[in-house]
């Protein structure tokens, strides 16, 4: 039983869980972005990629369920930590400055909640197509097969001004979350020391900036009608 406690109930054990699940989701986000950036290679490239992703039912659903579970664990553990952290200081400082604590780390919970709601909407809207069936049900011919026209789904779906702005806001939240979170993974998993600290900082911050730029670019080009 102590093993369960050591991993799921202790402060450090849960930091490992946060770090590992965070790392998995970060990896997904980067792959997702790289996949989506194929939009700049033209309709066929993106549509072909979409077909590839949907080609194996077992892998697809295994992947979806796995990612969903990881997200759920990340959220549940985060909430438990958050509640404990609040309880650890029952009387707040009158001058509540939280010194030397950067904005991103203070926004982890808020940003996380925002991302959670965005992801729900994103799945409902574009993956399930429940809100805008006309956008999602577009198809096209790839060779001699009829496939979902993901290229135009994206352009039309994200190009809509309200949706596009939502995407931009969500991207800001995600980037802020990762601005602290990505570097934090190394600390939480014990993979940081004085020598590596600076390199880890530079690499993770650069990765977040790349992600931010890439994720902003797609809604912007769609909204501005650069891609049609």
């Amino acid at each position, binding site marked *: 039983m*102590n*093993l369960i*406690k*050591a*991993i799921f*109930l*202790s*402060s*450090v*054990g*849960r*930091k*490992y869980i946060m770090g590992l699940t965070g790392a998995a989701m970060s990896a997904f986000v980067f792959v997702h972005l790289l996949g989506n950036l194929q939009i700049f290679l033209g309709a066929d490239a993106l549509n072909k990629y979409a077909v590839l992703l949907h080609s194996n039912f077992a892998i697809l659903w295994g992947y979806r369920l796995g990612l969903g579970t990881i997200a759920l664990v990340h959220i549940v553990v985060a909430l438990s*930590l958050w509640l*404990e*952290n609040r*309880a*650890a*200081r*029952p*009387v*707040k*400082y*009158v*001058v*509540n*400055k*939280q*010194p*030397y*604590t*950067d904005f991103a*780390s*203070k926004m*982890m919970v808020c940003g996380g909640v925002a991302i959670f709601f965005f992801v729900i909407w994103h799945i409902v809207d574009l993956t399930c197509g429940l809100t805008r069936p006309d956008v999602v049900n577009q198809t096209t011919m790839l060779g001699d097969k009829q496939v979902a026209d993901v290229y135009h789904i994206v352009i039309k779906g994200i190009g809509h001004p309200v949706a596009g702005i939502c995407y931009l806001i969500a991207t800001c939240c995600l980037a802020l979350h990762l601005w*602290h979170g990505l*570097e*934090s993974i*190394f*600390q*939480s*998993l*014990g*993979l*940081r*020391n*004085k020598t590596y*600290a600076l390199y880890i900082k530079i690499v993770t911050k650069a990765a977040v900036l790349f992600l931010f730029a890439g994720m902003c670019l797609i809604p912007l080009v769609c909204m501005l009608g650069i891609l049609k």
Partner: protein
Amino acid sequence: MSKDMNLTLKVWRQKDQASNGKMETYQAKKVSPDMSFLEMLDVVNEDLIQKGQDPIAFDSDCREGICGTCSMVIDGVPHGPQRGTTVCQLHMRHFKDGDTIAIEPWRARPFPVLKDLITNRSALDRIIQAGGYISVSTGNAPAANALPISKKASDEAMDAAACIGCGACVAACKNASAMLFVSAKVGHLGLLPQGQPERDKRVWKMISQMDKEGFGNCTNTYACESVCPKRVSASFIARLNRDYAVAVAKGECDR
């Protein structure tokens, strides 16, 4: 010589652990820039006693930055604005005439306020008692030079061992986490060959005790190392996390 200053102090006053506290305002007049912050409070207190009022209770002892007794949050920052400095070494030349200064105690559930600015930090003692030592009874020691230790390891152990146990790391952390304190001791002893036999047990016991005391959890903001008067690095926390994972993986938790 710079001129004397007049300051307004807003100080947390709390009769005892059971009472509620609140901020009260005092005037500190003719404060010399050469005074230490605590000497400024001494002068205010002398005045309060003369008036028959209860002086502001605060902890201090060595007043040279090493015992770790002094503990107050000045304008939201533990130990005040000068980095790498305990409040007893902070001098009034860092303030300006007319300033208003807010002074509060460390705030964390495991550090209950005993009176005004004095808190009970025995939780930190209990964490050390849980395993922050090397078990060697008096007289059992092998010859000092029997075991060479690389200068690098020894110096790094000293960096961690410099912790004075003041608790500023807890006070500064937005979650009131004691990880820097714990990591300093785990790092100090874990870096030395003498500390190896109990390394896994130590980290498991100390973390378990820390959790039991009700400290918050580390979210890697590094506010702790920024306020640490001895500049203990938060990289020791990473080391602690690593040691913990190894200890758990080896099954230390069920031993």
